[in-house]
């Protein structure tokens, strides 16, 4: 096991030599790359990375350019998890056989996917990787929509959001179903570590990523990734939206260790009303019409109930 990188504060963190490059093709203000940088910079160890088809992938590997300063692979929409699991298996095989070129290294295996790739099409592949407990980390860049294909609903899209395949209209408030509890499902594989993170809470995130890297076995991370294009807010406000998401408790930050031990890792001092979070995004604009205002109330009740549940679960240590 390699030594954990020391990151006491942001100044120290800023001495990291990035292994992700600019002049990628992600939208201005995209949170994906902020999350990716925080993940990659959390370690100095070598990296074997994969990305599923999606915004991150198509914007960082368009021939003849790559934005990755580490070994990286993309196969398809559904299988970045399994691509990295395959690479990890080869690492184990070559380690046993004494054929590693640089046997002294301690590579970390990380796969990235969007929520479409993770909650939907790649669900089975991720489940397989988690169940087999490969020594790898899977990171969802959760922007709650198929952004790369232009804004279709995924099973991460929250109720009331207007997506292109669940559009708000004269007789519809948009998406009708609740967001899937992916973290809960993945934790139910009894994997060593699962956590929800947000890029604005960088210290919480880096701590969790480092914990994940130090963990032997499968790690699942769900990262909220405010999407300027599909959530419909000004690119400069990405971190503001991330703040609203964590401080309204729409995206509570917690970790689940071994599928059982439950820790809330961030308690906002001032809890922001969910209404403020919704109001900051064009995708929820229609909810502020008189006929749909009840949905905002329901949103708040749902978030309150979930927060109460999470706190009870933490208290009960189950």
């Amino acid at each position, binding site marked *: 096991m390699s030594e954990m990188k020391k990151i006491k504060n*942001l*100044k*120290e*963190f*800023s*001495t*990291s*030599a*990035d*292994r*992700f*490059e*600019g*002049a*990628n*093709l*992600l939208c*201005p*203000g*995209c*949170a*994906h*790359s*902020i999350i990716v*940088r*925080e993940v990659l910079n959390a*370690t*100095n*160890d*070598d990296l074997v990375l994969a990305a599923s088809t999606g915004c991150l992938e198509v914007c*960082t*590997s368009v*021939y*003849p*350019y*790559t*934005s*990755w*300063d*580490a070994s990286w692979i993309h196969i398809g929409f559904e299988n970045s998890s399994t691509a990295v699991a395959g690479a990890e298996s080869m690492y184990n095989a070559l380690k046993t056989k004494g054929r590693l070129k640089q046997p002294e290294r301690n590579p970390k295996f990380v796969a990235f996917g969007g929520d479409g790739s993770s909650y939907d099409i790649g669900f089975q592949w991720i489940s397989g990787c988690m169940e087999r407990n490969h020594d790898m980390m899977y990171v969802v860049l959760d922007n709650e929509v198929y952004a790369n294909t232009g804004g279709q609903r995924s099973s991460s899209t929250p109720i009331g959001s207007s997506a292109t395949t669940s559009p708000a209209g004269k007789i519809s408030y948009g998406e009708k179903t609740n967001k899937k509890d992916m973290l809960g499902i993945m934790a139910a594989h009894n994997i060593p570590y699962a956590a929800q993170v947000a*890029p*604005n809470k*960088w210290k919480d995130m880096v701590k969790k990523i480092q914990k994940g890297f130090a963990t032997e076995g499968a790690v699942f991370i769900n990262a909220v990734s405010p999407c*300027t294009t599909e959530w419909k807010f*000004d*690119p*400069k*406000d*990405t*971190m*503001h939206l991330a703040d609203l998401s964590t401080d309204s408790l729409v995206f509570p930050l917690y970790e689940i260790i071994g599928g059982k031990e439950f820790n809330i890792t961030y308690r906002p001092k001032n809890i922001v009303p969910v209404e403020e979070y919704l109001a900051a995004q064009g995708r929820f604009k229609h909810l502020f019409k008189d006929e749909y205002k009840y949905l905002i109330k329901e949103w708040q009740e749902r978030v309150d109930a979930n927060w109460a549940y999470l706190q009870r679960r933490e208290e009960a240590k189950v």
Partner: protein
Amino acid sequence: MKKGWDEFEIGAMLRTFDGSIDNIAGTSQDDRSYSENSSYTASVADWRLIKPIFNKDYCIDCQFCWIYCPDVSIISRDKKMIGIDMDHCKGCGICAEVCPTNPKSLIMFPEQSEDEAEIASWPAKDEEK
């Protein structure tokens, strides 16, 4: 001229660096030999409509801009913010938004603005904040 079918590596594989690199995470971007295939060598400067101008007089090196820049465009070395990589900055404005100083040490201006002129007429401290 773009390469013909027989002129590139098989499998559409790309190498990030020319030659060998011993310890990427321990090597500053300044000291890496990026290949022509690394997007580090490319520019998205023409995406910008607005651009950040950095006034180091007010900077406290908090590094908020560094960590929240989506485009690896805040150049921090030895815990100091030393400038902006204008080849990679897309002008999103996050850095200026998260800058905590008063007045801000990063402010967005129209792309055509002159840095020196804007720094010379930098806004004063906002007493209401």
